[in-house]
């Protein structure tokens, strides 16, 4: 059994979730630094302990650097260069996303999902670049926005060519996350869009990753193929995957649609090219998602493919809740999109 298919440790999930909560709702800088250290460090430590290799040891360098940068930023708030480096690395901007990708291959899916949903890059952006603690110049913000916008396009492109469905969805999620960090560079209007984008990205990514992880576990689907054809065998998962995916990439009806619209509106005032790149990434994410959907669910199911067990009891209900929340937020966008 591969490492990815092993079960996540409940204690690791609990500690990771607590650390994420501390990171997001930290009362002070020290608590934030502790939170982000655990969020990033725990999966790394787990990877190092379980798969003792040079790769996982090397993968610790970027996030550790970022945490150190965040700590330095707490001591010297005007150190813009440190903030930029930290944001690029923790936000998994291209090509610093490799540590993230390396980790994905080494930790159980649920633990990786928790790390992805914690959005440490965006948390760092909110913490050090929030409207109250602006330390970057207009030019530096523009540069970062452009870098993240280009990263979003790159991740989308990778999502378009990857053959492993889970890796393709991770690329789409990273693309959406980097869009989020790019939007955070667009001053207060950009920040106003962020929480809607964060909610939409996390809800969508949770649903998509859980479905793909389940199909990987039960059917061994690790490649996008024209004869996977799981739509008839798994109609419930197929339906939810489709709806969540479309809402996740910004179809009208979901919160991401409004959040992206606001984000583009905010960013175009800073840089028309960055806004165009972001729009490009956003529209191509839909193509990347549809490719994944077709590669997993469409076609005539090949004879050797069969489920090794039933769908986990809670999964359909969880997907239903995620979809309803996503749709609900889409009909009431003002709930999350607003001044913070």
């Amino acid at each position, binding site marked *: 059994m591969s490492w990815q298919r092993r079960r996540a440790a409940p204690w690791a999930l609990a500690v990771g979730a607590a650390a994420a909560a501390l990171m997001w709702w930290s009362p002070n800088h020290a608590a934030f630094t502790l939170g982000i250290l655990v969020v990033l460090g725990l999966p790394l430590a787990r990877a190092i302990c379980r798969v003792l*290799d*040079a790769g996982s040891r090397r993968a610790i360098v970027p996030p550790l650097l970022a945490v150190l940068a965040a700590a330095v930023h707490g001591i010297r708030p005007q150190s813009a260069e440190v903030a930029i480096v930290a944001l690029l690395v923790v936000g998994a901007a291209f090509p610093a996303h490799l540590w993230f990708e390396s980790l994905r291959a080494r930790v159980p899916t649920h633990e990786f999902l928790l790390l992805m949903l914690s959005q440490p890059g965006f948390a760092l952006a909110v913490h050090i670049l929030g409207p109250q603690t602006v330390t970057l110049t207009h030019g530096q913000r523009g540069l970062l926005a452009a870098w993240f916008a280009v990263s979003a396009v790159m991740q989308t*492109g990778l999502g378009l060519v990857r053959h492993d469905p889970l890796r393709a969805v991770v690329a789409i999620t990273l693309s959406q996350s980097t869009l989020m960090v790019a939007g955070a560079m667009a001053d207060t209007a950009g920040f106003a869009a962020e929480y809607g984008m964060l909610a939409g990205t996390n809800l969508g990514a949770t649903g998509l990753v859980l479905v793909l992880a389940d199909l990987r576990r039960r059917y061994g689907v690790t490649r996008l193929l024209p004869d996977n*054809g799981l739509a008839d065998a798994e109609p419930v998962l197929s339906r939810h995957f489709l709806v969540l995916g479309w809402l996740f990439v910004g179809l009208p009806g979901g919160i991401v649609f409004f959040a992206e619209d606001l984000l583009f*509106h905010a960013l175009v005032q800073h840089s028309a090219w960055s806004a165009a790149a972001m*729009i490009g990434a956003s529209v191509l994410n839909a*193509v990347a998602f*549809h490719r994944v959907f077709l590669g997993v669910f*469409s076609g005539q199911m090949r004879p050797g493919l069969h489920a090794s067990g039933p769908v986990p009891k809670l999964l359909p209900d969880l997907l239903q809740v995620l979809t309803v929340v996503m749709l609900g937020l889409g009909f009431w966008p003002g709930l999350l999109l607003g001044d913070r």
Partner: protein
Amino acid sequence: VNLADLLAPLLGAVALGPAVLGLSLLVGFQGQSAWPRRMAIAHSLVVLLATLVVVQFWLGAGMVACERELPPLLELQGYRWVPILLVDGFSVVYLVLVALVYPVVVRFSLPSFVREPGAGRYWFLVALLGAALWLLSIAGSLDTLYVAWELVGVSSVMLIGFFRRQVRAAQNSLRALVYYRLGDFLVLLAVVLIHHGFHDHRFLGFAEQASSHAALPVALALLGGSLAKSAQLPMSPWLHRAMEGPASSSAIFYGALSVHLGPFLLLRTAPLWLPSTTACVVMAGIGLCTAAWATLVGRTRSDAKTALAYSTMAQIGLMYVELALGWHTLVAVHLFTHAGLRTWQFLRSSSLIQDFQDNPVFAAGMTMQRRYGFERLLPARLQRRVYLAALRLFWIDAVHWQLFVRPFLGLFRWLERVEERVLALRARVRRGR
């Protein structure tokens, strides 16, 4: 009661059908097998009734434009997302078209989607399309129009891939989505530029914005965005592949309603691009080229639906020329009559061949005769060359592949290989230890 007050409740009634069908699909509601069908019939009647109400009130009010601004869905820091509805001559033309074609397509689909696997999905997608087209017809701003535009695109893509066991259906739905999203990119860019550069976002306010510095980029973005939906050059090659879907959905999408959205969008935003000679020349050029290209290619197709698809493209190309010349009333008439004719032809296409083969009475005294056209005027050698070129779509697929798709995907495949190599390097180190 005036029309402005009625628009929101009518829109709510029209949106209710797909909402109920969609939610029931999502929660896996297992009612009577006929209920999605009945729901779709009821929805088509609601659409028809709502349109009759709108038209009657509009005529009663002296055919003046009626605008309704709904409460903003989002409002912060100078940014407002306000749904705006507008009823004027153009919206009434399209609205009537939707109200006439949609129930016909629903009626035509009834025998085909009784026990067909995925019938519920079909009815939901068709109802979603009907509602989206209704909203699109009465959209009063590009923001509102874009919502419906996207919903039309997604339902179209899902219907192309409706027969999901067929690999070709999946491939063609993905291809259609690529072209749609390229168009969406440009329309969304226009939306963002309008927010950034215009004081007034309403269609009715566009005339005053024509002198704005953003007017030309917006106009060109809208023109580019409209090309994909209407399958105009260079975004044409998806249309004949979209015929993988059910015949009735092809009729509604590629014969009648969806494919005419390009001219409709340009009619709506005419005050913006009409003063620009550049935009008009580009539009007319694209229209003419598409008309000539689609006519030639269409004559080499051997199946009815594909030949009809190319005829549709050619006619829409002519509409682009009419638009550029400023003959907008003619465009509205052309659009309406053409959509009606194509609906009938597409709906008839699937049974026509069967009639010829199986029904001796039908085919009695009829001969399939090849029609000769202007290509006969060409020298014989050139005729052959043009025929071969048309058979290969004038190499448009190869041009797209070589110039755009291959370099784009090639770059990312190369990046993926580099990424794999870096990650594999780590794995090798691990094995070494």
